[in-house]
């Protein structure tokens, strides 16, 4: 089973690289869907089947469809050369990213070691268990999120109207 993690981990990384370095937004989007799917598999491996499914249904199945739709609608092609160049981001960005990666790696290594097993007793992550937690302890955040969704829907409708 561990081997699956590494396989899908590598898939995720490669697809993420593709997300970043593809010049065509559609390829980026497709790569991102691959990342999401790979992560969903990893979630399954990590004992979160419900979240894995939600990830695919909501993220891959709904959110990314929106992205693809918008890309198709706006016919977003290759990136042209930028009129403004973000000099700061251009020159400082890459070394910063590298430093960030290294620093975080060191922190993870210091904190958890490289091979320490994430051992834990088996967890009941069934939809029923999640539902119980969600509708008991997390009922308020849940309701707040519903309102957030409602507001977002209204906002999207207003924004997408012909006359802004």
């Amino acid at each position, binding site marked *: 089973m561990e081997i699956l993690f590494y396989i899908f981990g590598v898939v995720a990384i490669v697809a993420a690289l593709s997300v970043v370095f593809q010049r065509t937004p559609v390829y980026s989007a497709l790569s991102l869907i691959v990342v999401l799917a790979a992560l969903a598999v990893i979630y399954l491996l990590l004992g979160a089947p419900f979240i894995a499914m939600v990830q695919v249904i909501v993220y891959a199945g709904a959110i990314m469809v929106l992205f693809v739709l918008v890309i198709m609608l706006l016919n977003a092609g290759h990136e042209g050369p930028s009129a403004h160049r973000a000099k700061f981001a251009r020159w400082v960005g890459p070394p910063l990213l590298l430093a960030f990666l290294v620093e975080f790696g060191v922190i993870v290594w210091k904190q958890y070691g490289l091979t320490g097993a994430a051992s834990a007793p088996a967890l009941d992550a069934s939809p029923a268990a999640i539902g119980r937690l969600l509708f008991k302890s*997390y009922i308020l955040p849940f309701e707040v999120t519903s309102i957030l969704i409602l507001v977002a829907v209204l*906002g999207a409708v207003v*924004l997408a109207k012909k006359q802004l």
Partner: protein
Amino acid sequence: MIPLSHILLLSVILFTLGAAGFIIRRNVITVFMCIELMLNAVNLAFIAFARRLPGLDGQLFVFFVIVVAAAEAAVGLAIIVALYRNRNSLAIDDVDSMKL
């Protein structure tokens, strides 16, 4: 079992790639997708910790992140569409002033 550090490293790599995309890419939609990538990296870390602790709360956090991401995508994409309609451009560098 999969070592926690490996999962976290995967998470960090994905996050860094997302950040890199944010900084490198010039297309608004791609940048937006890179944000989603970063969110997912964080989600992975949540799941990993939820497994280590153990507890379902981490998974619930991921659930909420996904929901919020959905809302964010709806509004964000609507903004992008409005933006494109007004400026006829998807280059993020063109969006550097509040006025049209």
